[in-house]
């Protein structure tokens, strides 16, 4: 019977061989992400910095210059206009997003300002209508930032505790380091591509955390099993064996998830495209980090291999031999 096989039955790839380079690459990318985050900064949506975002739809082509000109006399401060493209839109459907900076310091925008914006845009294109108007006052957006950071921190904390209880503290640290790596790299790619970063992206970040963790835990589970089974083999050997054993599963799950996500990316409309992009990226970095961040850190910290006898003495005996 025909079977689609992405990996041969018996693989023996030396995944952990180049761990110094791969781990180095991860660290480098994280450093670069942090650097661009501070140097360039994220393209925050109105959820996080307040302001108004208006989605326009009309039959005439979007002319960013003309839009900008018609809004200029109102003195609204910083205005960003982007055209929205989607493969399902015909030439009759022209969509743009207009973002206006927050006016005042607590409230959302006043109806007068909105009306003025809408009428002045309609003088350029009378068919223009406004399919969504969202406005967030700076007071709330500040709180949303705090909430988002809290949510991510709480998720990491909970994961740390759970894995520590189910495995060993070395695994918990490895897993959390992998998650921090995933989040940092995702933020990095959002900075580099200047994609809009809003509340939904926080949800995507936490999903990446969930996905990456799923992957890490499956790999860890196999390692835990093999560490007990092959007490005499070196930590690197056992890790390679575990990774090879779980390779098919890792790729199968990544593929099915990617298939679903790519369908959503192409067909799901532009409103959630940023969100889906983050998750697609997350599948890649999440799979990578399970091996090259989580496992490497466990290797570095060492694991207790002598599960029958207990005691802490055995805890780090393998770290010294391999790290040299």
């Amino acid at each position, binding site marked *: 019977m025909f079977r689609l096989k992405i990996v041969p039955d018996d693989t023996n790839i030396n995944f952990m061989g180049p761990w110094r380079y791969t781990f180095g690459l991860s660290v480098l990318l994280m450093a670069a992400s942090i650097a661009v985050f501070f140097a360039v900064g994220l393209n925050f949506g109105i959820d996080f910095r307040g302001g108004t975002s208006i989605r326009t739809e009309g039959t005439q082509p979007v002319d960013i210059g003309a839009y900008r000109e018609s809004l200029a006399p109102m003195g609204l401060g910083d205005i960003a206009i982007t055209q929205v493209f989607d493969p399902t839109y015909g030439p009759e459907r022209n969509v743009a997003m207009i973002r206006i900076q927050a006016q005042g310091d607590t409230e959302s925008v006043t109806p007068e300002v909105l009306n003025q914006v809408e009428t002045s845009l309609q003088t350029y294109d009378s068919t223009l209508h406004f399919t969504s108007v969202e406005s967030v006052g700076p007071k709330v957006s500040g709180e949303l930032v705090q909430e988002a950071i809290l949510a991510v921190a709480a998720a990491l904390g909970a994961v740390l505790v759970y894995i520590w209880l189910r495995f060993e503290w070395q695994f918990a640290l490895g897993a959390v380091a992998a998650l921090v790596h995933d989040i940092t790299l995702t933020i990095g790619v959002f900075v580099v591509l200047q994609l809009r970063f809003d509340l939904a992206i926080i949800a995507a970040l936490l999903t990446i955390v969930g996905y990456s963790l799923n992957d890490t835990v499956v790999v860890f589970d196999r390692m835990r099993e093999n560490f007990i089974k092959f007490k005499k083999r070196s930590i690197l050997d056992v890790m390679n064996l575990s990774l090879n054993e779980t390779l098919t599963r890792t790729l199968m799950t990544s593929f099915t998830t990617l298939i679903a996500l790519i369908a959503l990316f192409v067909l799901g409309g532009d*409103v959630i495209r940023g969100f889906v992009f983050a998750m697609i990226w997350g599948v890649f970095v999440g799979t990578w980090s399970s091996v090259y961040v989580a496992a490497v850190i466990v290797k570095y910290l060492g694991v207790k291999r002598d599960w029958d006898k207990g005691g802490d003495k055995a805890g780090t005996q393998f770290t010294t031999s391999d790290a040299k």
Partner: protein
Amino acid sequence: MLQVSLWKRALIILICLGAAVFAAPNLFYDQVERHNDAVATIEAGTSTPELEAERALWPDWLPSDLVNLGLDLRGGAHLLAEVQVSDVYADRIDALWPEVRDLLRAERSTVGGVRRMPSDDPGVLRIAIGNTDALPQALETVRTLSQPMQTLTGIGQQDLDIHLDGNEIVVTLSEAERLATDDRTMRQSLEIIRRRVDEVGTREPTILRQGTDRILIQVPGIGSADELKSLIGTTARLTFHPVVRTTSNANEAPGPRQVIYPSMDQQGVYYILEQTPVVNGEQLTDAQPTFDQNGRPAVSFRFNPAGARAFGLYTAENIGSPFAIVLDNEVISAPVIQSHISGGSGIITGRFTVEESTNLSVLLRAGALPAEMTFLEERTIGPELGQDSVDAGKTAAIVAMVAVLLYMGLSYGLFGWIANVALVFNIMMVFAVLSLIGGTLTLPGIAGIVLTIGMAVDANVLIFERIREELRTARGPARAIELGYEKAMSAILDANITTFITAAILFALGSGPVRGFAITLGLGIITSVFSAIFVTRLIIIWWFERRRPKTMSL
């Protein structure tokens, strides 16, 4: 060996069938929704042939619970309002002043004249007396007004904080009383907003208190946040004030304890009024749209006994002088009192249209908001955009589903198709549970479901890979299947519990669409573990029992 007791099998089949039945109404969303609306109207007492026809669109005996569509899918308006709870302190203090004055006047011989002094903070009452030597005695007298708190949290505390500041007696609400007042203000505001939104009669509005002083309002199907704002944002505070004089200068400084308000319909006319109203809208019992003797739209009103008494007394004493009817700091009209009005009812005339007089009476009937609101966040989603998102989400979900099913089938053959059956039940279970708990599906929620489609196969993949491994050590199919399930279990549970933890945190800390995503993701995790562990296993066992294969390849 591979054995599952009969009652377990029955339960698993029952759950799958239940999921199919309860998920089904969502396939006929429009029909079922119209049916539900018709049923609701008929139960409310009206029944027409059209309604019965609508009702017949979906059989009554089938489940009719639907997944709620979030604002981003249905279109509608979302507002986050902050109630200015401290407004109410000023009202309380104003109401206190006559009592303080009367108390001190009774002791005029020792304390001398009593005056209310201007205060920067309207929530603070400052009183000066003529004879400063009698201050301690006056303080004691005023302190008798303070009552012990009656609420659970405020036990052992007084409701007023009264002390001396220089030569003035200062009265403020105590901290405990402020908290109690805030809570009361919020509950009143919620109630009044609910009444106002209900008067327009839209489907399933969400009106929720958030934190100490915020209210979240979501109304699907309403045209724009502006519309919603004018409905709930109007304070509709009606007060009757004595008029001091009129002026055309907006910047003229009113005297102490006086205010200057513009006229509602005459440009450039301002009224200087006594700040303390004679009566206010809280004492209204009814308001109706009506017409005055000249046939112009007006609003009639009636006071409760206390309001009627105060109004009667005031009109009897002030015949010939004007008094102002004020709505939300604008003077609607300022008629001259012609006679003693004793019945406690009257009409408000102004330059209203019929619509305006109807709206005003609705607002007056529903009651004034106890405090003003500012709007921190507002979102309007057009129904077209919502529909686009639903359509796009549907297409994407179907394409994703078909692709994943094919891929699984090609990779694992028969077992892959078994997993696919479980995957279909899995999605049904998500929809069934969402419908039953009245969960809300948002656009990120659809993404959560699509992600579930992708990730749900993970548990099956783990099991199948394990079975493959066990088959290689040649233990025979039955043993391999059993060991595969057994050994994959710890990985499945750990992986899904950790993901579930993140979904739970998203649910607890997120809001709006993010929460919708957390719900579908969390549900998807639970149902996917269930379908992998129980549903696929049951189907595999059936297959195994019928075929009894000696060898098998996966």
